[in-house]
């Protein structure tokens, strides 16, 4: 604290200044680029085809030894393609760990689609808002094992500990795209990705930024996998969200990144507008650290807040991409929330969870499921839930279990996380 120290002469560009607000707003916020990477494959086209048909990307896990665990499958990604050409220095590119590579795959796809240019030297910078739950956890695991097995070793550990920090992954994305930040890293467990996009949406809407690169990512990690297994939260059969006999979730990995900007800016650029983000709700479920309230009270409030901001009523929502993990507690709670939120319109609300196809992507889930919603809006289809022998009695909504074409105008996606972090986004078809 420099109360008594002479103050250095600095360039005073203010991130916050008392008494001033953004000079414009609210703005309509549109998506002009989408990048997605899941166990169904790389890119929008492959994922759109996979989700539209309800393919499964679950497979035996090879990243770490699961032989001593109860469960051995997950949505593991096969890296078959090199990163697209980008401006990341070669040395930094060679050091990228798994989650960063996922993030860059998705980020560079969105970047290319958007037609954005790198930040210039005019002082205008583009924020990056990302959600992650585990970050570069495998690097943390390596650090722990090295420190435990070789206490005196120093070589390589400084780099390891730097790359472990989530800001390093954001920085890699910034370098690859020529953006300069600032970075916001939201770690709200399984709602992180949706929160990061919601945060970016509000920043653009209210004039705090003209454009934001936003998304979420998480890679499979032994610690996290064992953690969910220790909680008996993993399915020992196959994940089947909203089934009466569901027995847990599958973990997956992946990333999605969106380019968000003002509608008027996108129009001036002549950019292709992929969708509009119209509402964001965030609430906290105080019931329990790992268990949602059985009646989904906070979840319903999250949905209601997002719809209020979007100016839509439940009967106008054409599809809900549910959080739908496949655990007994989540799906019952979310089902109750959807019923309470929709009221008498519930039977006409189309709902599905895509986690039966790719697993639960934790901090990446909200972003990937937002990307799926955009692909569905544009393609005119609803991604099917896995087929169920008997849906849970709570499913008074239209649980979509087989591929279905539909003209979607407004869609909603839910993300609910450990610690009671709830987030809902509402998206609208580009007009």
């Amino acid at each position, binding site marked *: *604290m*420099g*109360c008594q*120290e002479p*103050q250095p002469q*600095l*360039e*005073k*560009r203010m*991130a*916050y200044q*008392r*008494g*001033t*607000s953004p000079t414009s707003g609210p703005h309509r916020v549109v998506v002009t680029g989408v990048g997605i990477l899941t166990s169904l494959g790389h890119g929008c086209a492959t994922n759109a085809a996979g989700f539209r048909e309800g393919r499964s990307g679950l497979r035996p896990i090879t990243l770490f030894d699961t032989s*001593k*665990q*109860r469960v051995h499958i997950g949505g593991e990604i096969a890296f078959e393609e090199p990163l697209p050409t980008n401006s990341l220095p070669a040395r930094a590119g060679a050091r990228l760990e798994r989650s960063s590579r996922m993030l860059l795959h998705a980020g560079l796809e969105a970047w290319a689609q958007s037609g954005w240019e790198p930040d210039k030297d005019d002082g205008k*910078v583009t924020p990056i808002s990302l959600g992650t*739950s585990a*970050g570069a956890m495998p690097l943390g*695991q390596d*650090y*722990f*094992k090295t*420190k*435990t097995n*070789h*206490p*005196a070793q120093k070589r390589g*550990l*400084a780099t390891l500990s730097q790359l472990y*920090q989530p*800001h390093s992954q954001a920085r890699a994305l910034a370098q690859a795209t020529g953006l300069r930040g600032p970075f*916001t*890293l939201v*770690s709200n*467990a399984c709602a992180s990705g949706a929160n990061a996009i919601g945060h970016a949406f*509000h*920043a653009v809407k*209210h004039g*705090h930024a003209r454009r934001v690169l936003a998304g979420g990512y998480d890679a499979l990690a*032994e*610690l996290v996998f*064992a*953690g969910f297994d*220790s*909680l008996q939260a993993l399915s020992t059969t196959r994940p089947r969200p909203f089934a009466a006999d569901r027995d847990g979730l599958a973990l997956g990995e992946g990333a999605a990144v969106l380019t968000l900007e003002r509608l008027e800016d996108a129009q001036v650029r002549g950019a292709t507008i992929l969708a509009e983000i119209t509402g964001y709700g*965030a*609430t*906290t479920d*105080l019931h329990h*650290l*790992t268990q949602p309230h059985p009646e989904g009270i*906070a979840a319903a*409030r999250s949905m209601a807040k997002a719809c209020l901001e979007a100016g839509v009523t439940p009967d106008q929502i054409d599809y809900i991409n549910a959080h739908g993990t496949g655990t007994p507690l989540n799906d019952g709670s979310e089902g109750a929330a959807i019923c309470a939120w929709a009221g008498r319109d519930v039977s006409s609300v189309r709902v599905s969870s895509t986690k039966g196809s790719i697993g639960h992507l934790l901090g990446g889930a909200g972003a990937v499921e937002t990307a799926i919603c955009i692909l569905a809006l544009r393609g005119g289809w609803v991604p099917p839930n896995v087929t169920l022998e008997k849906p849970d009695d709570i499913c008074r909504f239209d649980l979509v279990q087989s591929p279905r074409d539909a003209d979607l105008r407004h869609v909603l996606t839910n993300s609910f996380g*450990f*610690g*009671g*972090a709830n987030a809902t986004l509402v998206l609208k078809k580009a007009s």
Partner: protein
Amino acid sequence: MSTGIDIVGWGAVSPAGWSAHALHEAVSARANLPITTEQRGPGAPHRQFRSVPALPAPPAWLRQPRLRRTSPIGRFTVHAALEALGDPALPLIPEVADATGLIFVTQNGSVNYSRRFYAEVLNDPLLASPILFPETVFNAPGSHLAALIGTAGPSYTLVGDATEFLNAMITGAQWIDQGLVRDCLIVAAEELDWLSTEALHLFPGLQIGTEGAAAILIRRSNQSSPGTIQLESITDPVQSSAFAENAPAGVLGHGFSVSSAWQIVFACEAMRAQALSTASVLSRDTHHRLITTTLTRA
């Protein structure tokens, strides 16, 4: 349009003690707080740290069921937050649950439980404790705090470096400006563990680790009464080789994400105690860029 943001409450936990006052006294006096030196085993670095002293008596909030399993980071978080809220009665926000936002900031998170849990996983994953794992999630301390004080509005956990607390202040100010919340509680917390303290030895000048928390409660200015601390500005980070003394860090050690939070709380406490009209807080991030936060007194 915003008329501004006031800092209406603050609290701290540090090696100096369990209050903002203790932090202010120790830093103002440049107290020589005790340093512990330990070696985990042969070959491991002799790590140096300043830890938070034990509480003289268990506080009432420790009886809350959700806090019984928490590691130190959760307890530091709660204590600093309650001091900032200024009222030990619980729950604090029952009737206006959506009116208060919560932003929790950390760099290392619940590193104690993460290390212990992963050691159990490597030993035998089938025996790894389901009690430990949920507490390893970054947002666990913020979740416990939200449940304790009864705030069900927006809650973020932000992960970042020593200056992330300043980013959280900007976010909180935006939430208030956008009408999402009436006020916002912002807390940063860290706990000591050999895993993170030994990492400090890998970087020049970062030898002494420390732990604790700092919290502020911000609210939209509404004809601020005399003496109220007002948030005047926060600059973007700029490259600068200028000297910037971080007095709390000099006395306490490297507090990771709590570093800039302690600076802000120290400034608030100093402004109140010494009737200062203005304070400039200079914080340096991981990339050696300088951020200036200016506070004024109404």
